[in-house]
């Protein structure tokens, strides 16, 4: 007969609670210990230690599932070329992009290799991105491989912090069938704003809820180009003042506004601002012309293969040279975390991803333009080849930490007159004041 301790209900509960408490605290503490990158691979190969790098990128879905179709096949090739490297790739949805990057870098847990866009300087200024000049020099990398302009967004105070990887730019897309129905040559895009307006009016006159032109009322990338096409500028040279309320800029704003409210050749903003959106209405034959990033061509083709699509540079406004045909442009860049444990391997990934073959298999797969004058992604595709030649007309937004706030101010102000909530003058003047306040605040900070 057992004479030892008796397990009463109370003591059982007490002991269970103790164990639960210890287990919880233990689990909590263990969760605080950072995982060792590549630890999963440590036990496997006696011959070679495989380093696992994390890589984050915002998704570009125009071609379909980016990871499956473009990213993973490219990374498989990279891992074959460099068996000592394994890349753990994640698509970070754009909706979570800021919070995830900010949280990760704030905790010094940023990805080893990351895709960066206009807000990149936030991470550069706070010391989370590795300068690349020494590595570029020591590796003998030929800087002329990339367009010279493509280096600019990733260079601060003369120091290079990233590799150009993607160049996205907008073009004029048109529906050839609607052109034909309106009595215009389906293969000839409008050359001047007068042509643009005449074609828009004729397509709108086709009736049945069809419009010559459409844009999202808050589309900051596309709508912000109108003052440029008429000779205006957004900022002074040193980016300390917003000057988009000059007479030339106002010409652009008024022309744009008249498309909606006077001439009524543009789809009302309240319609184009909701599903299926500008691209959807264009795809469905409700709109004759739009400006959109060239990856949009892939979307139309996958959703409606029989669509008769035309692509070219935008019609020119009164501004001289490339500015007259101004369209949105932007560079997506590859960067290395300053606190990566594997700087050499991360650099290898960067160098390899921009080789012509891998650049084509990932970025060409997505439908973007090439960052290199030596690589043409689409030799057999006249539409995308045309898009690739329009790089000279693209204008980059400033790559600054305040860019998201600027876009919100810009988008909301333009939206307010497109939707008829304010006059052009009220909206633009208020916008300029807000942007200048923001610039002064940033300067003070």
């Amino acid at each position, binding site marked *: 007969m057992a004479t030892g301790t008796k397990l009463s209900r109370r003591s059982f509960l007490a002991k269970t609670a103790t164990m639960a408490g210890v287990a919880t605290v233990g689990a909590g503490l263990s969760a605080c210990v950072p995982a060792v990158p590549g630890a999963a691979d440590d036990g496997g190969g006696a011959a070679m230690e495989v380093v696992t790098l994390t890589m984050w990128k915002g998704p570009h879905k125009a071609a379909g599932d980016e990871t499956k179709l473009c990213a993973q096949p490219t990374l498989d090739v990279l891992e074959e070329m460099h068996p000592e490297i394994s890349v753990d790739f994640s698509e970070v949805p754009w909706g979570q992009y800021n919070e995830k990057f900010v949280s990760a870098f*704030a905790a010094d847990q940023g990805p080893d290799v990351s895709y960066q866009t206009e807000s990149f300087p*936030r991470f550069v*200024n706070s010391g989370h991105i590795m300068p690349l000049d020494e590595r570029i020099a020591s590796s003998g990398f030929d800087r002329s491989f990339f367009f010279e302009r493509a280096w600019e967004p990733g260079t601060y105070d003369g120091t290079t912090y990233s590799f150009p990887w993607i160049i996205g730019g907008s073009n004029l897309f048109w529906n050839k069938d609607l052109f034909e129905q309106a009595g215009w040559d389906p293969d000839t895009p409008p050359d001047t704003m007068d042509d643009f307006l005449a074609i828009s009016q004729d397509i709108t006159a086709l009736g049945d809820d069809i419009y010559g032109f459409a844009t999202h009322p808050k589309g900051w990338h596309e709508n912000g180009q109108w003052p440029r096409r008429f000779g205006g500028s957004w900022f002074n040279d040193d980016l300390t003042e917003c000057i988009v309320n000059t007479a030339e800029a106002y010409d652009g704003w008024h022309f744009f506004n008249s498309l909606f409210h006077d001439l009524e050749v543009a789809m009302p*903003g309240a319609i184009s601002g909701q599903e*299926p959106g500008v691209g959807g209405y264009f795809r469905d034959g409700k709109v004759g012309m739009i400006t959109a990033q060239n990856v949009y061509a892939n979307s139309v083709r996958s959703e409606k293969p029989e669509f008769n699509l035309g692509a070219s540079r935008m019609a020119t406004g009164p501004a001289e040279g490339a500015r007259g045909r101004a369209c949105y442009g932007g560079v997506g860049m590859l960067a290395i975390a300053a606190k990566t444990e594997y700087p050499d391997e991360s650099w290898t990934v960067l160098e390899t991803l921009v080789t012509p073959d891998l650049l084509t298999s990932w970025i060409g797969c997505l439908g973007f333009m090439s960052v290199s004058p030596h690589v043409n992604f689409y030799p057999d595709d006249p539409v995308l080849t045309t898009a690739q030649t329009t790089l000279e007309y693209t204008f980059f937004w400033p790559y600054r930490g305040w860019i998201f706030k600027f876009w919100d101010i810009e988008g909301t102000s333009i939206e307010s007159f497109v*939707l008829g909530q304010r006059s052009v003058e009220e909206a633009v003047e208020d916008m300029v004041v807000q942007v200048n306040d923001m610039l002064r605040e940033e300067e003070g900070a």
Partner: protein
Amino acid sequence: MIRGRAAVGLVQLQPCTDLQRVFFAAKAKSSEFHSRKSIYHWARTGESLQSGAEPMTSATSSSVQSGTAIASFWKRSDVRRNVGAYLFILPFMILFAVFNVGPFFWALWLSLIRGDLVQPVKPFVGLQNYVSLTTDNITLTVFKNSLQYTVSVVPIAVITALALAFLIGNKLVRFKDFYRSVVFFPLLASAAATAQIWSYILAPRYGVMTYLLSFVGVPEIYWLSDPTFALYGILLVEWWRGIGFHIILFLAAMLGVPEELHEAARIDGANAWQVAIRVTIPLMRPVILFSVVMGTIWAFQLFDTVFVLTNGGPVHSTATIVWYIYNHAFRYGQVGMAAAMGVVLLLIIMPISFVQMRVLGER
């Protein structure tokens, strides 16, 4: 209910002597606690711990405040006896401290600094962020939008949920469990996914809503892209998402109303409407109060549907406080402003909840 009443009893205690009074009260109640049914009796009657507590004498008070307070605390048999219970709640308390209490004080600190979350050094600016809030036009707009949304959605949600609860709870209605599942389902679905679906339902040209309304002669409404209607478009989606929570609560509360009271009212000649208004709803008051308070808090915290459907537009007509907090923290690199807005939001919700509890909770 048991936990609620016990909690009320504890809340009634004065803060400075809470701990002491709890233990003295517990000692006085110890005989009741030892009987198997005493805790249920205590909870059901709602008898406050204070009511059975011995008055605190100066002798006992001074002994607790002496240097041996901790030792005597642990020597108390009721404390030792409840060590197991404390260990059971310890994991929660640790997580609560780490994820709730800690961040609260950290947010207070952040509201006094300036800079981006990713910057290693953020300068101390005192109350400057709070001052900046008063001069920012958009801040005023988002507070106004949140208030307008809250005063619209809470009464609508609570009243319609109450009506639907009466419908579903009616004896004549069959398949009650099915209806409960149906109304609760939207709350289980992903907010982002359902918002995306609603963006198609509310679309002007191809949307189902436009199509259905056209049958009754309602012209096309730009639910999400007209500044006049956009907030109500959001309200519609959130009403659909949240009403199931209120209905389930009300159905549970209705089942708790003793049938004898209904019968007595009917014998006295009350019709169904009078029974509902005079008997059922008054007895559901604590649950309605809970529903209103939670609805108000959630309404002020509106974010995900706005983020997915309108991103605050058009022209800031659906921009809410939490949406603006998110933008400052993660997009604008102004974490101090975001934290200051969070503190102000807390200061708004607290008195509103307090007034609601006083008004609806009286009697």
